Structures are given as C-alpha cells and as structure tokens.
C-alpha cells in the first residue's frame, strides 16, 4: 500500500499523467427499493385487463361476466338475497375451527416442546395425523359427527392445528443451546426460563405456523361448503353452478379472496408488532 501512495505523489507533479479513472458505482445486484403499494399492483393490473376485455366484448359474459356485473350482483345478493347470512355462516365456521385449531396446536406444541414425555406421546401422533390428508377424513367425520356444523368445524380445526403445531414445536425444540446455558448461569427457574427465553424465542416460528393456519382455515372451508352444506358461501356458489350464474360464483370467490387477504394482513400486522425487535436485524 505504501508503495502505491508514494508513486502517485511523485508522479503527480509530472503533470502529463492522466487522471485516475473515476470510481464508478458497482452494478447493483439486489432488486432495489420496494415499489409503493407493491402487493396491490398485480391484482389491479389483472382487474384492469379484465375490465378492458369485457368492455371490448372479448369475453363471453356467460363464462366470465364483466367486473361491474359482478359488483351489481353482489349488491343485489347483499340487499335482497341470502348473502349476509351466508357470509356470517362461513365466517362462523372458519372462526370456530380456527380458534379451536389454534388452541390445540399451541397447547400440544407446548406440551411436546417442553417435556420429553410430552414429546414421546404427542409428536409421533401428530406426525401420523399429518401424513393423512385431512380432507380424506371427511367421510369418517360425517359418520361420527353427522352432517351438521360440528364436523365442519372439526375438519377446519384439524387443518389449522397441524401447521401451527409443527412450526411452534420446531421453534420450541430448536431453541439456541447458548441461551439455555445463559439461563442456567443466570439461575433462572424453569418457569422463568420458559417464559423469558423459550417462548419469546419460539414466537417467530409460531407466526409462520399461524399464517399457514389462517390460510388453511379458508381452504378447508371452501372444500367443506362445496360438498356438504345447506348454507354458507360455498353453498351459494354450488347453487349458482346449477343455474349457470357465473356472476354469483365470482362474487363468492371474490369474498373468499378478500377474507384470505384481510386475515393474512391482520396476522402480519400482529407479527410485526410482537416481533418488533427483529426489524433491527433485517435493516
């Protein structure tokens, strides 16, 4: 390094030496700044294309009705039809199933993540349950619980609890051994260790499971309502299929989509609040 400096200083008075090349910024390889409202942009483009194609008469209105037809149908169904009851019924099913699945997933994960006995009893059983496609349980559950609400809520709860259990359990048992050692050195009681070290450390994993669980609750709902229901959004869509009302089907899909998007955003928001300490790492 020293030699380089000396040569430049001695060469400078010789005047004729060309200026050293200006430092050019390196080509940036990361994608750069986020666009504002980035997550809405794609859906808006799709909507615009749909509207344009409908207006140009390029779409068969029987197969894909125009966006404004869908909106009009939705308004009509809401004021004069059964849409409010259907939405409420669907929300209730998803809500109950989700609440039960969340509770079960967290409790089982805690029991199995915090004690070896619990792990021996629970983990293998849940892994077995996971290997069986939950929707394949529908016939058996109808036989056991009848075709009413109970079996629907039960299926949704199963769809929800599995990802929550898996991710929370993995996070609980993957707690950094260095932190365990620290807790021992600081003389933490077992309860304090669980509350102050294990659970906060497992929260990121829990939130991954929670988001999968929320999505799962809607997924289970759609399937259940389309095959075994006499009310709810899925039933509405199923009926519309019989009468060839594609606009009604689109209304149902739209509402499902909005539910999914809103619930996911809510979970994200809570996650950002609770895990605010993580933002310091990602920046």
């Amino acid at each position, binding site marked *: 390094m020293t030699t380089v400096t000396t040569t430049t200083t001695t060469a400078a008075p010789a005047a004729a030496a060309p200026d050293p090349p200006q430092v050019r910024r390196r080509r940036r390889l990361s994608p750069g700044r986020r666009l504002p409202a980035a997550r809405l942009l794609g859906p808006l483009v799709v909507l615009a294309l749909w509207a344009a194609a409908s207006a140009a008469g390029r779409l068969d209105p029987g197969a894909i009705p125009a966006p404004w037809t869908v909106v009009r149908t939705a308004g009509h169904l809401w004021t004069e039809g059964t849409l409010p009851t259907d939405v409420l019924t669907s929300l209730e099913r998803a809500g109950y199933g989700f609440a039960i699945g969340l509770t079960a997933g967290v409790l089982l994960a805690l029991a199995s993540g915090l004690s070896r006995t619990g792990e021996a009893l629970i983990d293998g059983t849940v892994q077995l349950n996971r290997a069986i496609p939950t929707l394949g349980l529908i016939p058996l559950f109808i036989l056991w619980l009848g075709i009413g609400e109970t079996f629907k809520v039960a299926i949704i709860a199963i769809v929800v609890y599995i990802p929550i259990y898996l991710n929370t359990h993995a996070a609980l048992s993957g707690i950094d051994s*260095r*932190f365990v*050692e*620290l*807790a*021992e*050195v*600081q*003389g*933490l009681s077992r309860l*304090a260790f669980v509350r*102050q*070290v294990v659970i*906060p*450390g497992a*929260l990121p994993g829990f939130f991954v499971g929670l988001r999968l669980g929320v999505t799962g609750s809607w997924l289970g709902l759609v399937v259940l309502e389309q095959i075994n229901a006499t009310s709810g959004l899925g039933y509405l869509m199923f009926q519309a299929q019989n009468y060839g009302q594609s606009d009604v089907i689109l209304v149902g899909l739209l509402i499902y989509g909005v539910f999914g998007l809103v619930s996911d955003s809510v979970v994200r928001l809570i996650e950002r609040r609770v*895990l605010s*300490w*993580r933002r*310091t*790492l990602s920046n």
Partner: protein
Amino acid sequence: MAPHTEQLTRPAVRLRGLTRSFGGRAVLDGIDLDLPAGQFTALLGHSGSGKSTLLRAVAGLDHGVAGSGRLTAPERVSVVFQDSRLLPWRRVLGNVLLGLDGKDAEERGRAALEEVGLKGRERAWPGELSGGEAQRAALARSLVREPELLLADEPFGALDALTRIRMHNLLRDLWKRHRPSVLLVTHDVDEAIVLADRVLVLENGRIGLDLTIDRPHPRSYREPVLGEYRERLLAALGVTEDHA
C-alpha cells in the same frame, strides 16, 4: 503489591484431583488448584487444551461430561461468554436484569449499565449495539449480580484490537471496584500479562506453569519487564519467538 492478604487466606475456588474426559480422553487430568478470593487469574492454553472445559466445570455447566474430583466454588458466580449472548427479544436493560428480582433490581441494572458506559442505551435492542457495546452489556449483566467469582471465557476474542484495549481497562477497573475473584480464559498471552496478577498455563490436562505477575497496574504492552513474563509463558506454551 499484596494489599488483600487477609482475603487471600480463604480460597474462593478449590479444585482437587479434577478430571474431565471426552470419549475416554482425559482433557483435565487431576487438577489441583486454589484461587484465592479477590484474585485476578488468567488461564492460558492452546485451543483444545481444556481451558474452556475447566471454566465450564467451575461454572457447573458441564452436564453429562464424565469426570471426577472435588470442586468448591462460591455461591454467586457470573459467566461472561465470548459472544455477548444477549437475548435479541429483550431490550438492553431487560437483558441485564435477566434472572434478577427484587424491588431495587431495575435501579441496580441502570447503575450497572452506567458503570460500563452504556447509560442512555437501556431501551436499545441488542441488534442495535456494536460488538463492543454488546460485550459491555454482557459485563453489566454479570456484575449486577455482585458475583464473588467472575468467569470469563475469551470475552474479548471477537472484538477488534482497539475495542479490546478499551475493554481491558474497563474490566480491570470494574475488578478493582468490586473485587470478585476472576478467572479469565484466554489464548492471548499479552492480554493475560496486562490484566492478570497470576497466569496459569494449562498443558496436557494439568497446570503446566503458575506464574505470579507482581507489577503495578495499569500495565502497558511495551513494558520491558513484561517481555520476560511473555517469554516464559510462550515457552510454557511451546512457542519460541523468532527474533531474526
């Protein structure tokens, strides 16, 4: 320089025939050692010489390691690790208070942070601290418990050279004020000479050299007398300095 002779009579740590082995290989092979209360001791050794094994044994952290021997250590022991080991989900003050309760705990935590020069950073997240600041917070966490014995496992190993010198002064100051017994594990001969009043070299599972460094503090790396200590320690570690 022997100011605390009355303290030195009662050993804080006593090891008798301490043996620890991994996979049938004795890493610590019958160690006898007394650490007087209030003494600042450094433990040197090659990597893999068993320094950390000894420290972890004294800290009571070696679960499931085969071994025998007698070991007594004080009630209140704090450990400083090479990494600061701050819980990323607790703010700095929360980390210092980990495992501490009582009404005046928070007050003591703030005082400890002030003492290590982190006043005003109580509400920061560990992710916002520099390496040196994080290690200061870790020091505050161990001091707030008023330990009789402070165990430090290469606490400055991950810091840059400038920060390390500052941390040396800080540790020495804190020791002077609180007078815990210190066992500092390091592989840095200069660090041991500058900081400690007694330097042990661990070799083949035993204490190969037990050297008292009777020089006033603060010491500089450049003191010629310290060079003699350095050569003796390096020789004990099997390193010969090349003066060519």
